[in-house]
């Protein structure tokens, strides 16, 4: 668009410098080097570089977004400048690291990092190269905003899938690429990350499909929604049946290692469903949720263990109801004192409860009963009619069953009287009380239901590992679960699953993530709250509620 508005150069400069600081921080905290080992496109680019240049592209993109009405050429130049400036702090770093040994202060300012930054060239050439690449990346970042939507969406989708497939290439090879067809595909597509052929293939398929969907999807959707209600219902059930079938055969597709990962995700999904009731439905922010997970696990441990600490030698199935009941009881007991508390005070008190339980589990005081730091050992595996839940593939079905039960219960409760009471309470406690809702009962039921799922998860966790230690039950679990329901969308059931897959699945698959997991979570919590407080898969009413305070509409994209 041709307008007379002057181009906002200051903004480009500012964004470029911010991008540069982000890139510098990423380098100095070790992200770039650690992820530098993870090739996305073999020999071309690593995840570390993607993150690094992501800062520059972001600066260019934002700079163009800040000037939506400027002329194309100006916007591109703005992006170029932003990218250029974003590389300056890195170049300063490269030159400072020569005379001064930065590693005395910053352990991650290593020769490896510096080599990576200057593309393994010498200082002068490398710096110029870095400058040039950053400028181009900034330019591209700005350029993306200028493309029309029907080109931009397939492009971004294609790139996203290349990133995902490249990221997971090691896992894909591990699971399928050792013989037969899998090996052939592997030779064709993968090397260290995707090969160039593989990249093109993935990109073309995804971009093509996306473009096709963009062109035809609207019509297909319109046709579905034009169907009579009866047929739509059948379609809905068909979708659910397909989903269940898929879940049933999943371990056969995924093989042992990935099934193990999915099992861990499953335990978090189970906890997510529970916390979703407490936080998502009832709006009670609980930061000590891990306490119930711990109580479920310890009850299971004490009741079934065949070691010295086992008291009853029960089987898994007879101990399971007791473990869940113990968690529910704990939920009610811890719930009573906080009934009159609201909002942030509740969060802090529950955090305190969680820590108390963990310290008690670790202390010598309770060690005679639950083993202190040594934990409880020799917890037997569950078995059902000759089927032992030992291998991840069989354990999967136990966890799947638990998740399905939890999902069903959550889903039915949400639409039931109780669920509507919870949501009324979440919206406004005083009004809810005035409408005749018994707050004491409703809150306690929320705590109890949430605790029940966590207890179930803990009980399965205990038999899965066959030994439990207090350090498995730290605050980070609570934060993890909270994070996954926030990312997925508070109150949304599919959101819990999506959140768990992203936040628990990905870090388990990529070992480099382990070290930066919480850094990522922290940043994710902030970014989500700033940009999409309703999560990626929001529940309708929640979305409305959270956007209430915005006076102007969100920029549609």
């Amino acid at each position: 668009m041709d307008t007379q508005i002057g181009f906002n150069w200051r903004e480009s400069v500012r964004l470029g410098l911010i991008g540069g600081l982000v890139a510098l921080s990423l380098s100095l905290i070790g992200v770039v080097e650690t992820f530098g080992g993870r090739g996305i496109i073999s020999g071309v680019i690593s995840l570390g570089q993607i993150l690094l240049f992501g800062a520059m592209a972001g600066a260019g993109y934002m700079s163009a977004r800040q000037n939506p009405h400027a002329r194309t050429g100006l916007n591109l130049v703005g992006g170029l400048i932003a990218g250029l400036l974003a590389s300056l702090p890195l170049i300063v770093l490269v030159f400072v690291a020569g005379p001064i040994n930065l590693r005395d202060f910053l352990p991650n300012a290593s020769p490896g990092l510096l080599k990576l930054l200057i593309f393994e060239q010498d200082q002068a050439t490398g710096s110029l190269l870095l400058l040039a690449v950053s400028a181009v990346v900034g330019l591209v970042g700005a350029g993306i905003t200028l493309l029309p939507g029907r080109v931009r969406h397939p492009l971004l989708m294609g790139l996203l899938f290349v990133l995902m497939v490249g990221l997971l290439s090691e896992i894909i090879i591990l699971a399928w690429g050792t013989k037969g067809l899998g090996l052939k595909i592997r030779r064709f597509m993968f090397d260290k990350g995707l090969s160039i052929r593989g990249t093109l293939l993935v990109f073309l398929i995804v971009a093509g499909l996306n473009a096709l969907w963009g062109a035809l999807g609207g019509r297909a959707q319109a046709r579905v929604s034009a169907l009579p209600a009866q047929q739509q219902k059948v379609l809905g059930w068909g979708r659910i049946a397909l989903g269940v079938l898929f879940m049933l055969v999943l371990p056969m597709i995924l093989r042992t290692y990935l099934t193990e990962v999915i099992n861990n995700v499953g335990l978090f999904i189970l906890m997510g469903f529970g916390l979703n009731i407490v936080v998502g439905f009832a709006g009670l922010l609980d930061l000590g949720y891990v306490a119930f997970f711990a109580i479920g696990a310890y009850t299971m441990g004490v009741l079934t263990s065949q070691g010295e600490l086992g008291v009853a030698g029960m089987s898994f199935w007879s101990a399971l109801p007791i473990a869940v009941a113990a968690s529910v009881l704990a939920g009610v007991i811890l719930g009573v004192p906080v009934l009159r508390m609201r909002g942030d005070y509740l969060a802090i008190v529950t955090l305190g409860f969680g820590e108390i339980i963990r310290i008690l589990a670790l202390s010598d005081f309770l060690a005679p009963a639950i083993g202190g730091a040594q934990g409880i050992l020799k917890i037997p595996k569950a078995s059902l009619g000759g089927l032992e839940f030992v291998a991840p593939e069989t354990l999967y079905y136990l966890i799947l069953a638990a998740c399905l039960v939890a999902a069903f219960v959550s889903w039915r409760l949400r639409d039931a009287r109780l669920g509507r009471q919870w949501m009324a309470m979440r919206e406004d406690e005083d009004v809810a009380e005035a409408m005749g809702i018994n707050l004491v009962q409703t809150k306690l039921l929320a705590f109890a239901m949430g605790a029940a799922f966590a207890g179930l998860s803990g009980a399965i966790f205990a038999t899965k590992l066959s030994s439990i230690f207090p350090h498995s039950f730290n605050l980070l679990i609570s934060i993890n679960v909270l994070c996954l329901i926030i990312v997925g969308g508070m109150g949304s059931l599919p959101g819990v699953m999506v959140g768990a897959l992203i936040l628990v699945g990905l870090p388990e698959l990529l070992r480099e993530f382990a070290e930066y997991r919480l850094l990522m979570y922290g940043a994710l919590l902030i970014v989500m709250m700033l940009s999409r407080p309703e999560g990626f898969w929001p529940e309708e009413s929640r979305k409305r509620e959270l956007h209430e305070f915005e006076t102007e509409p969100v920029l549609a994209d």
Partner: protein
Amino acid sequence: MRQRLENIDYLGLVLWLFRTAIIVAVVWGTVATIRDNPYSTRNWIDFVIFGLAQGSLYALIALGYTLVYGVLFIINFAHGEFFMSGVFTATVFVAIPMGQSGFLDRNPILALLIIAVVAMATSVGISLLTERIAYRPLRRAPRLVPLITAIGASFFWQYFFRGLYGSGITAFPTVQALQGSWSIAGIDILKTQAVVIVASILLLITLYVIVMRTKMGKAMRAVAEDKEIAALMGIDVDRVIVITFAMGSAAAGVAGVLYAILFRQVHFFMGFIPGIKAFTAAVLGGIGSIPGAALGGLFLGMVESVGPSLFLEGLGIPSSYQLKDVIAFTMLVLVLIFRPQGILGERLAEKKA
């Protein structure tokens, strides 16, 4: 009769029983300990002095919570990280090089001042960055939203500094001038502890005077009372909030240096637990009140230091020092349940929740 049964406040009853049980346990334990008397007077005095030193640190950190909560009504969960970031940075970049070159021992006062200034500057920088990015855009959001970003910011900074300076425990250099102890009125006090107590109290008084006597302090109090009216009176609310954050985190930065002098180590996780405890102290004293933060901090430090030996051992609990944090957290829970307005505070919890 039935009517009467229905009128009983069951919740109140349960809470009353809960409270009574804890009081009985504490009294029982105390009596048992006093009867057995396993410690000498000297031990008790040491416990108390250590408690005072620890408590004055809590008080300094609690100040930041109190100021920010007073103005914005958010629990600045990341405050413990402001505390950590300052002293961690100062240790890595200033204290260790000065310790190695011997500057620290030649000019201890100047060196410690430089360390404190660097720590304060870093803490303030980090806190202002956090305020700008994570809190300011959310000022009108539902209350849980800024709390969640605060939790996010807390973990973000923890692991940011872990990445930056490494995950190990870094030793803070020993200050030769602060070795040994002074004898005051027949009681030996470790020099480090004395310095911590005196410095904290001086700083607390300074900040109290700033808030109560200066024009800026007046503006802060006005904003705490009512942001909109304050803005109508010509007060730049954003600026006041920024200054509030800066004051709180500057105190936290100094507290970090004092912590390092006392415990001679720094690490990326050092801010988290003291942060929660300082929050407890702030609530205990009455959130929003500076003398309350001081009082709450000292009280919490004392109970934590004396408590395990005084009443937990009497109850026959082995290695009771392990449960020191349980005492702090239990106090947090008890205060929030039974006296959310704290010792000196007005009843904020109900008014503004």
